[in-house]
């Protein structure tokens, strides 16, 4: 019997998801970068048209039967490639350090892949920062391909200031 459970997030999970988002930001040396609030997560994930979906990993709480702790999450949404159709995009994927090595990450990826295939997605896409060698090795070991290196794709961004400027131009 596994000591953890993976399930779809529910509205009441938003505070725990935010806690883990902040932990991941700290790991990526950007602890103050998280600007969203629990209210944003609730509205954006559980409103009429969700902007994201989320899987939660939880383990039983010691000494409290029927209670559990949230120890990991995977946030994803669906995107589109006009050449191949629907894709599953993995936005964030994090397991708390004390709970690594239990197979939680592998099980999350397995569930995400199953969701992708069931939804008729051609692939699962995600970003990794090139200095994050452990993560890159983790994904490449499992069959992922670096498209930026292989095919030359570069990610570009217009920030809010530019977005407003372009939006107001005729």
């Amino acid at each position: 019997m596994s000591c953890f459970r993976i399930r779809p997030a529910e509205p009441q999970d938003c505070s725990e998801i935010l806690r883990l988002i902040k932990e991941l930001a700290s790991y990526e040396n950007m602890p103050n970068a998280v600007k969203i609030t629990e209210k944003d997560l609730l509205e954006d994930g559980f409103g009429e048209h969700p902007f994201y979906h989320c899987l939660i990993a939880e383990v039983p709480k010691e000494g409290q039967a029927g209670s559990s702790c949230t120890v990991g999450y995977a946030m994803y949404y669906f995107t589109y490639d006009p050449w191949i159709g629907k894709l599953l995009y993995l936005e964030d994927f994090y397991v708390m350090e004390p709970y690594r090595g239990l197979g939680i990450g592998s099980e999350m990826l397995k569930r995400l892949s199953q969701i992708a295939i069931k939804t008729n997605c051609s692939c699962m896409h995600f970003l990794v920062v090139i200095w994050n060698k452990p993560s890159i090795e983790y994904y490449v070991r499992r069959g992922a391909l670096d498209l930026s290196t292989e095919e030359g794709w570069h990610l570009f961004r217009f920030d809010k200031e530019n977005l407003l400027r372009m939006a107001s131009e005729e």
Partner: protein
Amino acid sequence: MECVVRPCRAEDCVEVMRMIRELAEFEKLPDQVQINDQVLREDGFANDPFYRCLVAEVPPEYRSRDGHTIVGYGLYFFTYSTWKGRNIYMEDLYIMPEFRGIDLEENRMNLGSPGICTPNYAGKGIGKKLMSKIAEIGVENRCIEMKFVVLDWNQAAIDFYQSQGAVDLTAAEGWHFFHFKGDALVRLAQGQTGL
């Protein structure tokens, strides 16, 4: 020259598919287009669409050499950042070559020969109009950023976007795109780790 940018309708999918194939040819990857206009229609016009699309349309008197009045498209969707919230992602932006470089503001067009491109009017044309509309939709939906990808050899596109204020996050911050595809995705779904 008038050019209307409007939401794509289901019946426009045939024209958008035509231009998707043209863009794939330009990106030197024509064999990679696997969907057709029917799939495009199903995925874009379902209850919860997987993408949204704008088209650029010109009046019949400015139709293309091949007789098309839908001369460009911008395909986008909403994404999410756990740090900042809602984003808008510009997946494809394409203008038929004969309609590029047209200065819509000054209306510089040779009326005797519809579709002649005038040089040196980057930033005032149909592509800019499409991109502005996508930005407007982003702002209306409280999006914090717009993101998109460009191939590293496409210097004309890179120059254009950077001139508009875009930042290359792959160069600046080291972000790389990865994917699990085909057999790799199936193996992952079956719980097989390792190659």
